[in-house]
C-alpha cells in the first residue's frame, strides 16, 4: 500500500425526502483495493456519484493527489483519472462494443474517427482481460454479463489512477469473476487505487485490503480485511437496526393448499420449462444472478410478456393468462423491480395510483366516486404507514420506500391473493426496508401468497419459506428454508454457467 491518493471528508448530500449522505469520510491509498460495504441504500453509490461529479455535494471536501477538487461531470473526473464502472449499465445499445469503449474520446485521423484503431485497441484490452468479445458486435446484441465486461474494459482503458467498481460481479459467472480478480490484482500492482463495492462477503475477503462500511448514509468505520472476520463486517453493516427475525423454518402449515401452480412455462430464451407451486400463506423466494430469468418468469406468469407454452393453475383450476388484465382478474398482483418504469405513474397522485387496478369498483354510474376512492386511499396510507401529507400528494414527491408502499396499496386495494414482489426493497433506505419486510410477513400470515424475487442473499434467507433458484432461464434448484445456505444457493445459481 502506498500513500493516500484520495480523501473524502464530511461529505453531505440530501435529496428531497432522503438524507442520502450524512458527513461521510473515506480514504483511498495507491495500490490498495478498498471495499466499500453497506446494505442497499446505505449510500455507497451516492458517495461514488458525488466523487465522479454526477451529483454535486452539499458540503464536505474531496482531496485528490493532495489537491482539493470538485468535478462537475464525469468527463472532468475521467480527465483527472477517476473512472467508475457503473452498477447500471451505461451503454449505447446501437453502437458497437469498440465504439462504446472509446465513446467521448475517439481516436481520430483528421476529422475521421479511426474505427480500425479503436477495434484494435479494444482487442488488446480484451486480450489483457482474457475475455472473448468481438469489438465489432453491436452492444445491444451482447448478454448482460458481456456488457458488464465491456463496461469494465472501458473503465480500464482510461489511463486511470482510481477505478471504482460498483458491484461488478453481480452479473458475472465464477470464471468471469476469477478473470476480473486477476485484472484487479494486476491493476493493484500497477499502484492504482481501487474502490470495490460489493455485497459478496467472500469476494471481499479474497480481493480487498481494507473495508469501509457505511450505514444509512453515514460512515461507520474502516477495517483491515485480513484482521477482521465476516461477522465484524456484518455487525458494522447491520448496526443497531433491528431486522425482522430471519426465518429458520417455514411458517407455512404443512396442509396449506396450493394456490398457484405453474407447469412447464416457456417464454423466450430467459424462461425455459419453469415449473413450481405456491402455497397459501407462503413466501416463495426466487434467487439467482442478474439475468437468470426470474423477472422474466414473473412477467410471463403475469401476462406482461407473451409466453410460448405452459399451464397455470389457480386453486387447482387451469386459467388462461394472456395479459395483465387476465392476471389481475385472477387475483395476481405484480410489484415490478423497476418501480418508476413499471410500477407507478409518478406525475399522478397517491389516490390515482392506489385505485389504478380497481377503478371499476369506485364508479358511481359513469363517474368516479372520488370520496370513496379517497377514503380507501386514506385507509391504506394509515395501514401501511405511508409518509405523506395527504392522498393528493403527487407520487413523484415521495421517497422510494413510500412509493413502494403506494404500489403495494394498489394491490391490497385489489385484494389480490397472489402477490409477486420483484426486488421489493431496491433503492429503499434501511428503515423502510424493514417495514416492507414486516408488511410481507403480515400479509403472508393473513393468508396471502407471495413470490419474492430478490438478488440480495440476506433478504432471500431472511424472508423466504422456500427458495427457488434460477440460472440462465432454467430452474436449477428448490431449497426449503431449513436447508438453505448462501453456498447452496450460489452453487445452484451458477450451475449452468460455464
Amino acid at each position, binding site marked *: 500500500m502506498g500513500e493516500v491518493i484520495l480523501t473524502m471528508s464530511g461529505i453531505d448530500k440530501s435529496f428531497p425526502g432522503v438524507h442520502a449522505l450524512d458527513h461521510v469520510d473515506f480514504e483511498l491509498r495507491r495500490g490498495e483495493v478498498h471495499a466499500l460495504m453497506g446494505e442497499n441504500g446505505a449510500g455507497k453509490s451516492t458517495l461514488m456519484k458525488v466523487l465522479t461529479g454526477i451529483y454535486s455535494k452539499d458540503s464536505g471536501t474531496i482531496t485528490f493527489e493532495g489537491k482539493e477538487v470538485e468535478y462537475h461531470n464525469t468527463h472532468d473526473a475521467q480527465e483527472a483519472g477517476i473512472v467508475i464502472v457503473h452498477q447500471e449499465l*451505461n*451503454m449505447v445499445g*446501437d*453502437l458497437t462494443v469498440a465504439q462504446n469503449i472509446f*465513446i467521448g474520446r*475517439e481516436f481520430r485521423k483528421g476529422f475521421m474517427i479511426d474505427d480500425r484503431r479503436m477495434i484494435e485497441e479494444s482487442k488488446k484490452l480484451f486480450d489483457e482481460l482474457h475475455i472473448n468479445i468481438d469489438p465489432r458486435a453491436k452492444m445491444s446484441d451482447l448478454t448482460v454479463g458481456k456488457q458488464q465486461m465491456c463496461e469494465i474494459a472501458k473503465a480500464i482503458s482510461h489511463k486511470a489512477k482510481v477505478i471504482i467498481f460498483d458491484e461488478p460481479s453481480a452479473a458475472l459467472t465464477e470464471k468471469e469473476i476469477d478473470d476480473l480478480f486477476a485484472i484487479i490484482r494486476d491493476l493493484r500492482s500497477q499502484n492504482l487505487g481501487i474502490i470495490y463495492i460489493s455485497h459478496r462477503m467472500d469476494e471481499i475477503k479474497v480481493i480487498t485490503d481494507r473495508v469501509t462500511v457505511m450505514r444509512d448514509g453515514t460512515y461507520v468505520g474502516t477495517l483491515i480485511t485480513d484482521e477482521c472476520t465476516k461477522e465484524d463486517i456484518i455487525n458494522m453493516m447491520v448496526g443497531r437496526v433491528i431486522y425482522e427475525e430471519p426465518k429458520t423454518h417455514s411458517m407455512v402449515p404443512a396442509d396449506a393448499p396450493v394456490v398457484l401452480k405453474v407447469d412447464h412455462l416457456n417464454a423466450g430464451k430467459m424462461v425455459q420449462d419453469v415449473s413450481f407451486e405456491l402455497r397459501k400463506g407462503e413466501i416463495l423466494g426466487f434467487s439467482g444472478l442478474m439475468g437468470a430469468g426470474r423477472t422474466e418468469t414473473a412477467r410471463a406468469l403475469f401476462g406482461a410478456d407473451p409466453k410460448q407454452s405452459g399451464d397455470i393453475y389457480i386453486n387447482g383450476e387451469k386459467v388462461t393468462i394472456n395479459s395483465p388484465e387476465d392476471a389481475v382478474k385472477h387475483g395476481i398482483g405484480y410489484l415490478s423491480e423497476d418501480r418508476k418504469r413499471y410500477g407507478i405513474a409518478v406525475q399522478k397522485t397517491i389516490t390515482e395510483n392506489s385505485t389504478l387496478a380497481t377503478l371499476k369498483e369506485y364508479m358511481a354510474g359513469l363517474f368516479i366516486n372520488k370520496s370513496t376512492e379517497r377514503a380507501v386511499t386514506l385507509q391504506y396510507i394509515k395501514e401501511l404507514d405511508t409518509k405523506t401529507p395527504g392522498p393528493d400528494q403527487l407520487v413523484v414527491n415521495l421517497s422510494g420506500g413510500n412509493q413502494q408502499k403506494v404500489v403495494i396499496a394498489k394491490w391490497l386495494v385489489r385484494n389480490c391473493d397472489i402477490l409477486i414482489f420483484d426486488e421489493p426493497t431496491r433503492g429503499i433506505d434501511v428503515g423502510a426496508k424493514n417495514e416492507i419486510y414486516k408488511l410481507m410477513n403480515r400479509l403472508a400470515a393473513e393468508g396471502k401468497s407471495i413470490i419474492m424475487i430478490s438478488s440480495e442473499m440476506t433478504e432471500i434467507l431472511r424472508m423466504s419459506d422456500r427458495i427457488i433458484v434460477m440460472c440462465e432461464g432454467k430452474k436449477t434448484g428448490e431449497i426449503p428454508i431449513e436447508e438453505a445456505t448462501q453456498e447452496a444457493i450460489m452453487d445452484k445459481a451458477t450451475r449452468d454457467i460455464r
Partner: protein
Amino acid sequence: MTKKKTIFSQEVIVAIVLVALYLIFRTISSDFGKYTTFLSMMDISYYYVLMAIGVAFPLITGGVDLSIGTGMICYALAGGFLIRNYNVPTGLAILVSILFGAAIGLCNGVLISILGLPPFLATLCNCMITRGLGSVVTGSFAVPWPTAKQDNGWFHSIFKITTANKTKIPLGLVWIILLMLLMQFILAHTRFGRYTIAIGSNKEAAMLSGINVRFYHVMVYVVSGLFAGLASIAYAAVIKTVQPGTGAGMELDAIGGAIVGGVSASGGYGTIYGTVIGAYVIIFLKQGLPYIGFNANMQQIITGLVLIGAVCIDIIKRKVIK
C-alpha cells in the same frame, strides 16, 4: 446473424421498392421513361432530398424538426428579397439564405437542448414563426429569384447545366450524391455522427461518458437548419418564384422519406443513403402516379399508406427477429 440483418434491412427493401416503382411506372407509361421526365423529377427532388438529409439527424437523436418546410421558404424569400430589392450579389444572397437556415436551426437547438423543450413543440413553434417571418420580411409578397438567363442567375447552373449539344445534365444529382456520401461519412465516421446516434440511443449513457451532449444536440438541429437553407437555394433554382405562406407540409414529405428509408422514428438508428432512397420513393410516388393515370389526389392517399406500411414492416420485422 449480422448478414441476415443487412439483407432484410429497410434500406435494401426500400431500394428494391424504388427500382420496382420505376419499372412499374415505366412499363405502364412510356412517357415516364423519357430523359426529360427524369430531369423534371430530379429538379423537384433536390429540395425534398436536401431537407430529408438534414432532418435525418434530429430524427436519429429521437427528435424531429418540423420547421424545415416553412423555414426553407422563409430562407428562399429572404435571399431573393435581398437580390431583388437591394441588388445584393447572388452569391451573398445564397450565403444569407443558408446561414439564415443555420440560425433558425441554432434557435431550435437551443430551445431543445439547453432549455429542454420537447423537439416537436419547439420546432412547431419555429414552423409558425418562420412562416410568419418569411411574410413579414417580404411584406407578404412573392419574390422571384433571377432567371437562368439573367446575369445574376448563375446559380441555376449549380443544379443543371446544358452542354454544347443542348443536352441537359442534372448536376444537382451529383451534389446530392456527394452530400449524401459526405453526410453518411459524417454520421458513421466522425464524432458528431457518433454522438448523434448515441444521443438517440441512450442520452444518459452518452452524458455519463463525458460527451458534451448539449453542444452536439444543438449542432444536430443546426445541421438540419443548414440543409433547409441549402434546400431553399434548390427551391429557388427550380421554382424561381417563391411565395410566402407556402412550405407547410413539405417537411412532412421529407420526414416521411427519412422514415421510409429506415430511420428509426424513436431514434438511435438511421442511414443517410437510406434517407435519400426513401425520399426518392416519396418523390417517385408524387411525380410518377400522375403518369400512370392516377387521379392526382389518390397520390396523397397512397403516400399516406406507404408511410404506414413502411413502419409496419419495421415493426413486424422486429417482432419476427425477436
